[in-house]
C-alpha cells in the first residue's frame, strides 16, 4: 500500500485530479472579470458624464449601459457558480470513490493478514479504522489537489486584482499573509501531534470496551465492574486532557487569524481614506478593493482549513496504513487472483514436511522441527501434549500458516507458493471454533462452496443494467466487480445438481454428522412459505388429517387438544380462544387486545368486559401475593409471572384502589391494565380456576361476534384457524398439530413428537420439514446452537465439499462423547481413500487411523501405526499411559 496519502491519491486518481485542476484553472479568468465589472459599473456607468458609452463595440445610453453591465455581472455570477458546482461535485465524487477504494483495500488486506496478527490486534481497534477513522480521508482525497490550487488561485486572482487596481492598498491587504503563512503551520504542528495521540487513545479505548463485552461473565463473576470503570475513566481522562489541549490551541490559532484578518481593514480605512482625501484614489477603486478583500477571507480560511485537514489526514492515513501492513501478509496474487489451473490434490498426492519450523514471533516458536508426510489416501492422527505444537502443525497442514523454516510442500511445490484456492477448494478444515456466520444453516453450509461467481443471477433487463452500472462504478474505485448476487455455489464440488438434489445432499451431510434430528426439530418450528413450495400446503393438511385420525382413535387420552371453532380450548390462551386465529402484525397482538376498540366493543356486546376486568383484578391480586417478595430479576418472575417485575407495584396500587372503590371506580387506564391480564390465562396450565363454564360459553359467543363483525380494515391483521386451510403465518408444527399440546400429561411431549413424526412420514413431508430446518438462523457466531451442534455443523460444511484432504484440528474437544464418535465415523467413512490429518485432543482416539504422528515440544518424535507405537514403549505409549 502507498506509504503516504499523497502517494495513494496520485497513484489512483491522477487523471481525475488533473481534470479538476484544469477546470479550476479555466474558472479563474471568469472570476477575475467578475471583480472587474463592479468597478466599471461604479466608475463608468455611474460616472457624471451622461453621454453614450460603448460596450463590446456597441454604442448605448448610460442607463442601457448600466443594465447591460449588470446583466453581464449576473451572467458571470451564474458562470462562476456553475464552475464552483462542477468542481465541488467532481471533488465529492472523486473523494467518495477514493474512500470506497481505501476501505475496500483495507478490508481486502485484512483478509490477507497472517493468523497470528489476530492474537495481537483486537477487533475493537481494526473495525473503527475501516469504518470511522478513514471517513474524513474521503473528503480530503477529493480535495487533495484541486482545493489548495483553487483556493490559492482565488487568492492570487484577488491579490493580483488588488495590486493592479491600487498597488499600495494591495500591498497593505497582502502584508500580513506571509506572517500568517509562517506562524500558523508552526502552531498547527503541535495540534497535529496531539491529534495523533488522540486517535491512538480512542482506538485503545474502543478495544477495551470490546474486551469488556467479550469478558462480561468474568466481570460479573469477579465483581470487577468498578475496576474496569476506573480503567475506562482513566482512559477518558487521558482523552479529555488531549482534546482540551487541542481545543485551546485550535482556538488560539483561530483567534490569531481573526485578529490578523481584522487588522487589514484598518489599513484600508486609514491608508485608502488618506489617498481618497488626497484625491489620489477613486472611491470606486476602494469599494472594489474592499469587496475583493472581503472575498479573500473565505479562500484564505478554506486554505487554512485545508492545511489542518491535510495534516490530520496524513497522520490518520499513516496510522491506519501501518496497522494494515503486518509482516507475513499473504501475497495478493495467491489469494485474490483466479488461477488458471490449480495444482490438483489427488489420492496419489503427498504433503510433506521436512524440518519444518513455525514461529509466530521471536519468542513463540511452537513448531521447531517437524518431519513427516501424509499421502492423500491415508488417515493420519497427530497426537501430543497440548501446547507441544500439534495444533500449529494442524494449521500448517491446512496451509493456514506458513512454515518459517524448513520445507513444507505438496508433491515438491512449496505450500507457500500455492494459491489459496488450491487448498481452499480441494481441502477442508475444521478447527476448535466452528467459525459460523450469523445466517441460516443453509448459508453456513454453502459457504464452503462459494469461491467465485459461477452462474450470473437471473435478472430482468432493467435489474441487469443496474447491476452492470454498479460493476462499472466498482471498477472505478478499484473494488471487485464480482456480482454478490450471482450463484457462487460450486455444485460440482458437492456432487449435486442445483435445487432439490443439492438440498437432499445438504440434508444427507447433516444426517451423517448427526444433525438430522435437530434439523427436523428446527424445521418443525420453522415457517415455510407455501407459495414457494408447490404442494406443500396440501401435504401438510394430509399430515394434519393423519394426526387427527390418530387422536380420534379410542384408547389413551390424546396429548393434543385440537382447535375447534365451537369449543373452548383449555390448553390455549384466552386471547387465542377469542381470536381463534393467529394475529398478523401488532394490531391483535396479545399485549394490545385490551386497548383495541373493536375487541372492546365485541367484549362489551358479549357482556364480558366487566367480568374480564374482575378476573384481571383477581389475577393481579394472586400475582401480587405470589411474587411480592421475589427479587425482580429472578427467573421465576420471567418464567411464571403475568406481570413484569417493574409493573408489579402499579398493580398492587390498582388492587388496593379496587378494594376501596370497586372496579367501576377505577380510572379507564387502570381498568385497561386489568383487562390485559386474563388474555394470557391458559386454564389447564395456570389452574387458577378463574375461567368457568359460563364464561367459556360467553367467550365462544364473543369469538363468533369477533369473526362476524371484524371491520374490513382489520381483516389483514388476523389469520383465522381453519381446519381445512394451511396457516401461512404459523410454523409447520402448529400447522400439523392444529391444536395445543395438553398440559399436564405425563410423557405428553414424547407422545406428541411420536405422533408428529408418524404424521410427517405418512404425508411424506420429512424432506420439506428438513428443508425448513435449513432456513434456521444460527445466530451470531452460531449462538443459537449448542457447542456440539456448532461443531457438527462445521464438520458438515467440510464434508459437503467432498475435499481431497480434510484437516481436523482439536475440533471435538468440547463435543459430547456420543457425538464425537459419530463425527469420527462420519469423517472416516466419507473420506475413505482420501487424506485426513486429525489433530487429536487425546492419544487414545488415534486407534483406527492408518498412522500416528507424535508431536512433543515442537518436534515430531514418533511416526508409525497404532499397533507399532502403542507397544513400542516410546513417547506414544507414555502418552497413552498418562491419559
Amino acid at each position: 500500500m502507498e506509504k503516504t496519502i499523497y502517494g495513494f491519491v496520485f497513484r489512483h486518481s491522477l487523471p481525475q485530479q488533473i481534470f479538476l485542476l484544469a477546470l479550476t484553472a479555466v474558472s479563474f479568468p471568469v472570476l477575475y472579470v467578475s471583480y472587474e465589472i463592479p468597478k466599471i459599473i461604479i466608475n463608468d456607468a455611474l460616472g457624471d458624464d451622461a453621454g453614450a458609452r460603448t460596450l463590446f463595440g456597441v454604442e448605448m445610453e448610460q442607463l442601457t449601459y448600466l443594465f447591460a453591465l449588470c446583466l453581464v455581472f449576473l451572467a458571470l455570477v451564474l458562470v462562476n457558480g456553475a464552475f464552483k458546482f462542477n468542481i465541488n461535485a467532481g471533488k465529492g465524487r472523486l473523494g467518495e470513490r477514493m474512500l470506497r477504494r481505501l476501505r475496500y483495500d483495507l478490508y481486502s488486506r485484512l483478509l490477507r493478514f497472517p493468523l497470528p496478527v489476530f492474537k495481537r490486534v483486537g477487533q475493537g481497534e481494526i473495525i473503527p479504522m475501516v469504518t470511522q477513522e478513514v471517513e474524513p480521508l474521503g473528503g480530503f482525497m477529493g480535495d487533495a489537489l484541486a482545493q489548495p490550487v483553487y483556493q490559492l488561485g482565488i487568492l492570487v486572482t484577488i491579490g493580483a486584482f488588488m495590486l493592479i487596481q491600487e498597488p499600495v492598498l494591495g500591498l497593505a491587504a497582502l502584508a500580513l499573509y506571509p506572517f500568517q503563512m509562517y506562524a500558523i503551520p508552526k502552531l498547527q504542528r503541535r495540534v497535529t501531534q496531539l491529534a495523533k495521540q488522540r486517535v491512538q487513545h480512542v482506538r485503545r479505548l474502543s478495544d477495551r470496551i470490546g474486551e469488556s463485552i467479550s469478558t462480561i461473565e468474568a466481570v460479573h463473576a469477579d465483581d470487577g465492574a468498578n475496576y474496569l470503570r476506573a480503567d475506562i475513566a482513566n482512559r477518558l481522562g487521558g482523552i479529555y486532557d488531549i482534546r482540551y489541549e487541542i481545543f485551546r490551541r485550535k482556538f488560539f490559532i483561530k483567534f490569531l487569524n481573526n485578529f490578523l484578518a481584522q487588522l487589514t481593514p484598518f489599513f484600508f480605512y486609514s491608508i485608502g481614506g488618506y489617498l481618497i482625501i488626497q484625491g489620489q484614489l477613486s472611491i470606486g477603486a476602494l469599494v472594489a478593493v474592499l469587496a475583493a478583500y472581503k472575498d479573500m477571507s473565505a479562500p484564505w480560511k478554506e486554505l487554512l482549513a485545508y492545511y489542518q485537514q491535510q495534516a490530520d489526514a496524513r497522520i490518520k492515513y499513516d496510522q491506519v496504513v501501518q496497522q494494515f501492513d503486518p509482516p507475513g501478509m499473504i501475497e495478493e496474487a495467491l489469494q485474490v487472483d483466479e488461477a488458471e489451473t490449480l495444482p490438483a490434490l489427488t489420492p496419489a498426492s503427498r504433503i510433506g514436511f521436512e524440518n519444518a519450523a513455525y514461529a509466530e514471533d521471536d519468542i513463540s516458536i511452537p513448531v521447531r522441527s517437524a518431519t513427516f508426510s501424509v499421502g492423500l489416501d491415508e488417515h493420519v492422527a497427530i497426537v501430543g501434549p497440548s501446547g507441544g505444537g500439534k495444533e500449529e502443525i494442524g494449521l500448517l497442514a491446512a496451509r493456514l500458516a506458513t512454515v518459517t523454516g524448513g520445507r513444507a510442500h505438496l508433491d515438491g511445490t512449496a505450500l507457500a507458493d500455492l494459491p489459496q484456492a488450491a487448498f481452499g477448494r480441494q481441502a477442508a478444515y475444521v478447527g476448535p471454533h466452528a467459525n459460523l456466520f450469523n445466517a441460516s444453516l443453509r448459508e453456513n453450509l454453502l459457504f464452503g462452496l462459494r469461491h467465485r461467481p459461477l452462474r450470473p443471477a437471473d435478472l430482468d433487463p432493467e435489474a441487469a443494467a443496474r447491476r452492470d452500472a454498479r460493476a462499472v462504478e466498482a471498477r472505478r474505485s478499484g473494488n471487485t466487480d464480482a456480482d454478490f448476487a450471482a450463484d457462487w455455489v460450486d455444485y460440482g464440488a458437492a456432487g449435486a445438481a442445483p435445487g432439490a438434489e443439492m438440498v437432499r445432499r445438504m440434508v444427507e451431510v447433516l444426517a451423517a454428522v448427526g444433525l438430522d434430528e435437530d434439523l427436523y426439530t428446527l424445521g418443525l418450528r420453522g415457517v415455510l412459505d407455501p407459495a414457494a413450495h408447490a404442494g406443500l400446503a396440501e401435504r401438510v393438511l394430509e399430515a394434519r388429517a393423519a394426526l387427527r385420525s390418530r387422536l380420534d382413535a379410542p384408547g389413551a387420552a390424546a396429548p393434543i387438544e385440537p382447535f375447534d371453532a365451537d369449543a373452548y380450548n383449555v390448553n390455549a390462551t384466552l386471547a387465542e380462544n377469542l381470536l381463534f386465529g393467529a394475529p398478523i402484525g401488532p394490531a391483535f397482538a396479545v399485549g394490545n387486545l385490551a386497548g383495541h376498540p373493536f375487541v372492546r366493543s365485541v367484549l362489551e356486546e358479549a357482556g364480558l368486559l366487566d367480568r374480564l376486568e374482575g378476573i384481571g383484578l383477581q389475577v393481579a391480586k394472586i400475582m401480587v401475593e405470589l411474587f411480592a417478595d421475589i427479587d425482580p430479576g429472578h427467573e421465576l418472575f420471567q418464567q411464571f409471572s403475568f406481570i413484569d417485575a417493574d409493573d408489579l407495584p402499579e398493580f398492587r396500587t390498582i388492587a388496593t384502589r379496587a378494594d376501596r372503590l370497586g372496579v367501576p371506580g377505577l380510572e379507564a387506564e387502570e381498568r385497561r391494565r386489568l383487562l390485559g391480564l386474563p388474555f394470557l390465562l391458559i386454564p389447564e396450565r395456570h389452574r387458577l380456576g378463574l375461567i368457568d363454564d359460563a364464561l367459556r360459553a360467553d367467550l365462544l359467543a364473543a369469538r363468533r361476534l369477533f369473526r362476524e363483525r371484524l371491520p374490513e380494515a382489520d381483516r389483514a391483521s388476523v389469520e383465522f384457524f381453519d381446519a381445512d386451510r394451511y396457516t401461512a403465518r404459523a410454523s409447520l408444527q402448529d400447522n400439523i398439530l392444529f391444536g395445543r399440546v395438553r398440559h399436564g400429561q405425563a410423557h405428553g411431549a414424547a407422545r406428541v413428537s411420536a405422533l408428529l413424526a408418524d404424521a410427517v412420514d405418512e404425508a411424506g413431508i420429512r424432506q420439506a420439514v428438513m428443508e425448513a430446518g435449513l432456513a434456521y438462523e444460527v445466530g451470531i457466531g452460531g449462538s443459537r446452537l449448542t457447542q456440539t451442534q456448532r461443531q457438527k455443523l462445521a464438520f458438515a460444511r467440510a464434508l459437503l465439499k467432498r475435499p481431497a484432504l480434510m484437516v481436523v484440528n482439536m475440533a471435538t474437544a468440547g463435543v459430547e462423547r456420543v457425538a464425537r464418535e459419530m463425527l469420527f465415523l462420519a469423517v472416516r467413512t466419507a473420506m475413505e481413500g482420501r487424506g485426513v490429518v486429525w489433530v487429536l485432543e487425546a492419544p487414545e482416539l488415534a486407534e483406527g487411523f492408518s498412522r500416528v504422528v507424535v508431536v512433543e515440544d515442537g518436534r515430531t518424535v514418533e511416526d508409525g501405526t497404532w499397533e507399532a507405537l502403542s507397544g513400542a514403549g516410546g513417547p506414544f505409549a507414555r502418552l497413552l499411559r498418562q491419559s
Partner: protein
Amino acid sequence: MALNEEVEALRAIPLFQRIEASRLRLLAFTSERVRFEPDDLVVRQGDIGDAAYIVLEGRAEVLVDTPQGPLRVAELGRNDIIGEIAILIDVPRTATVRTTEAMTALRISKELFFRLVEEFPQMAVEIMRELAQRLDRTTNDLREARAQLAAG
C-alpha cells in the same frame, strides 16, 4: 380452586409442613400438574432424576429390581412424595414407580426447587431439619439392625 387443593397436598408432606402458605402457593403455581394413565412409569430405577412428584390423586407401586425380577416394596397414595432425593443430589433413581390406577401428581422440577430454595433460605432450613430427622431415624434403624445381627 385447584391451586388451593395442591397447596393442601403440599402442606400434608413433612418436608413442606412448616413452610409458609404463600410460599407453598408459589411452589404449587410454578409446578406442573401431571396426569398419569394406569401402568405409566413415573420414575425408572437407574434413571437420572430431574423432578419430584407429589401424589394428589390415585395410587402407584414402588418396585425395586432384584436378581429375581422386580420386587414390590411399597404402595403410594394421596399426599405421598416420589423421588425427593433425586432433586437434592445427583443420584440415579433408587426404585421404579409405576401407577396402578390413573394418577394426578404435582411435578416439582429440580431446577424450580433449587430456585425456590435459593430465594427463600428458610425453606432450606426446613428441609435440612426434615433430612436430619430422617438421618436420625436411619441411623437408629442401622444401629438396631447391627445389634440384631450381632445378637443373631
